């Protein structure tokens, strides 16, 4: 029983360490234009 709990904790720790955290990145994300004279 103790071994099972230990394994679960180890698995949780492993997953926790590999979760990808979104990195803040400098970039232009979106551009919107309003145009006139388009047919």
């Amino acid at each position, binding site marked *: 029983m103790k071994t099972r709990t230990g394994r679960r904790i180890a698995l949780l720790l492993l997953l926790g360490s590999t979760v990808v955290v979104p990195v*803040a*990145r*400098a*970039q*232009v*994300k*979106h*551009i*919107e*234009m*309003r*145009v*006139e*004279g*388009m*047919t």
Partner: protein
Amino acid sequence: MKQHLGRQAGVQKVDVNLLDGKVDVTPKEDGQIDPIQLLKATYDSGVTVAEMELTASGKIVKDSSGNLALQVELNRSFAFAPNELSKGLEPLAGTQTIVTVRGQLYKKAGKKKADLSTPLKLLILEVQKEVQKKE
């Protein structure tokens, strides 16, 4: 126009809405997109740009004249048109904080043709989020 804009550097997708004259441009993640170039390309395709808004993330920097700007690439930054929102970002100048803002880069004034020879200023409309970047 859609094809013309789609060929510009850094453009991933262009959506054109003929009904309300809205053009949505989705940039690639390569950071090559140049909004000023896009503005010129739109004029070249024979339509008039009434307004351009963009959403961008970057660091707050001060240029050589002491004006605040959003630096989105090493060699690309947008100077802010001063308003209350830009003043609020002043304490972040020179820090590693990445700020996401939505702002107006261009608005047509009357019937005058756009003067794209002078640098355009970004009028911040909304500060969306600030994230402390880890070194």
